[in-house]
């Protein structure tokens, strides 16, 4: 039982990141030059990245491509490491892009970075959770720093309001989620998602039918799954648990909104895939249609309400709800195919690919918005008028990101939607793919409206050029290139997503 050096190695990326968070906060006390602190934070992220890559190589060499640590509480497979690397990449880019913005926090700038790192530590643990206890602890480790970050602009009532709203709704969703966990524990007598040895079975192995004819064949499991779905629905900003999203995105500092939109959502999808596929994969026929219906409602609500928005951050908030809907299509498609002899990983691969592409295009959009609003101080769509002349580079990159979010080739947004809808059609959800395509057309209205305002409307009054600082430009260029590259040559990302999906299927 005891703690072994292997356990420490398996959790090394998270340990390194938490250590780095402390180091940044302490170093900030000692050093006057804040650029050095940022440099240490960015370069220091190479350590967890190196550990994650070495774990990928290690797991790749194993016959059973998975390793469990801490007596089964932690699962390291390529699925978990795929998300660790994705999250670490997001972290580097967010740090670079938000440097200018966080300058306004002055002596609290390092605390801001530290809190983002602590939250990312929790998010990295989530996809690697081997039992429901780890899921809960990692979820709280990820959420609590985000509450503090959302309320970080102490002097703005909007920011405090965003923090309180996130705290209350995250608290309620945790309680609901825990009630669901308790019921699953009641029905199966275990909380393990993955079984580390034959003597310690997982939930999937302990599911029994007590009420034939009922979904899941068991009252406690049925109630438990409904509550777990509601609890996770909050993190995914899935309708009807999406009401916090626009308020928090609007009120929180913009880099926090970007982090929430991309990092938090990726990890939430990872844990949903892990729990529903590993622990409840055998009964997928019972929950697949629920996800399909939720996907249809989520993307429709997200897109239709986004049309009416005038604040850019709020609009992007609704846009992330719509994109959660597209990704839920892939989650539903997994289910319909589970147990099939065919390519059962089609849905998972499409969700993982979409998450990778979504990270690139959404970060590009948010980074451009951070750079622009930080200089102009105007967060309305109208405030972007004339940007095509004032700042051709930023306007061009924002326009490109929006084109990708709409799903127009040759961008990663198009490829992602292609894979997701392909998975849906292949698993008998043609109607869902049709709704998805209709939604993409609706979304073109509000995305391309921003492009229209930027290029065709003259600036109101202030027509000075707007530019981003060097680190932000690097981050923005990197994400824009990624959007184009993955759109033209999806193979690299697709191969990584396939490896991760295969690893997840194996845990069944």
């Amino acid at each position: 039982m005891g703690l072994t050096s292997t356990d420490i190695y398996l959790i090394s990326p998270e340990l390194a990141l938490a250590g780095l968070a402390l180091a940044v906060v302490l170093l900030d006390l000692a050093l006057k030059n804040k650029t050095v602190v940022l440099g240490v934070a960015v370069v220091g992220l190479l350590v967890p990245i190196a550990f994650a890559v070495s774990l990928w190589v290690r797991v790749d060499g194993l016959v059973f491509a998975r390793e469990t640590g801490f007596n089964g509480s932690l699962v390291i497979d390529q699925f978990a490491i795929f998300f660790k690397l994705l999250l670490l990449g997001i972290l580097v880019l967010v740090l670079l892009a938000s440097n200018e913005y966080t300058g306004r926090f002055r002596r609290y700038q390092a605390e801001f970075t530290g809190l983002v790192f602590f939250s990312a530590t929790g998010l990295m643990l989530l996809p690697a959770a081997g039992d429901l206890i780890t899921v809960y602890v990692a979820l709280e480790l990820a959420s609590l720093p985000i509450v503090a970050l959302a309320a970080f602009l102490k002097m703005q009532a909007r920011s405090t309001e965003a923090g309180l709203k996130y705290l209350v709704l995250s608290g309620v969703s945790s309680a609901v989620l825990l009630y669901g966990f308790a019921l699953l524990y009641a029905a199966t007598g275990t909380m393990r998602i993955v079984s580390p040895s034959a003597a310690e079975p997982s939930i999937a192995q302990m599911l029994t039918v007590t009420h034939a004819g009922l979904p899941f064949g068991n009252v406690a499991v049925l109630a438990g799954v409904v509550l777990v779905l509601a609890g996770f629905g909050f993190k995914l900003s899935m309708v009807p648990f999406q009401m916090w999203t626009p308020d928090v995105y609007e009120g929180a500092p913009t880099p926090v909104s970007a982090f929430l939109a991309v990092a938090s959502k990726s990890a939430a999808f990872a844990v949903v895939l892990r729990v529903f596929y590993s622990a409840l994969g055998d009964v997928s026929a019972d929950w697949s249609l629920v996800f399909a219906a939720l996907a249809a409602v989520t993307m429709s609500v997200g897109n239709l309400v986004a049309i009416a928005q005038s604040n850019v951050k709020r609009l992007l908030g609704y846009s992330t709800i719509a994109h959660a809907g597209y990704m839920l299509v892939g989650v539903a498609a997994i289910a319909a195919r589970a147990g099939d002899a065919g390519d059962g990983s089609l849905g998972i691969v499409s969700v993982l690919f979409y998450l990778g592409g979504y990270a690139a295009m959404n970060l590009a959009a948010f980074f451009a918005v951070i750079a622009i609003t930080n200089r102009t101080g105007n967060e309305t769509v109208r405030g972007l008028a004339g940007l095509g002349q004032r700042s051709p580079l930023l306007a061009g990159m924002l326009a490109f990101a929006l084109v990708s979010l709409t799903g127009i080739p040759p961008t990663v947004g198009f490829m992602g939607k292609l894979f997701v809808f392909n998975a849906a059609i292949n698993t008998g959800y043609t109607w869902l793919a049709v709704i998805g395509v209709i939604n993409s057309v609706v979304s073109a209205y509000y995305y391309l409206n921003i492009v229209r305002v930027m290029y065709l409307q003259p600036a109101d009054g202030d027509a000075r050029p707007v530019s981003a600082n060097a680190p932000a430009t690097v981050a923005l260029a990197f994400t824009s290139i990624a959007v184009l590259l993955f759109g033209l040559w999806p193979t690299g990302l697709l191969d990584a997503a396939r490896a991760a999906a295969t690893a997840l299927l194996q845990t069944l």
Partner: protein
Amino acid sequence: MTLVHFQLLSAALFALGVYGVLARRSAVLVLISIELMLNAVNVNLVAWAAYNHFDKVTGLVIAVFVITVAAAEVALAFAIVLRLYRARGSVNVDEIDIMRG
């Protein structure tokens, strides 16, 4: 006392907590209601751990984690509520509505 009694108690406490979150106007009472929900779950977990012959530890372990995390959550919550009180002179959640739409 059988397992069913504990489950009914847990469900009743949880329902009270949900009612409190939805109906209470003071942010402090909303937060207390959330604590009630978490502790309702704890009752359920501990009862199941006691009556479970297969795995007696897991339910207790997660209950301890829930208590610990709840303490951290309260510390953060009251920092934000204090901030709110200083800014507005009230902690009434009905008045927290700058952002809508």
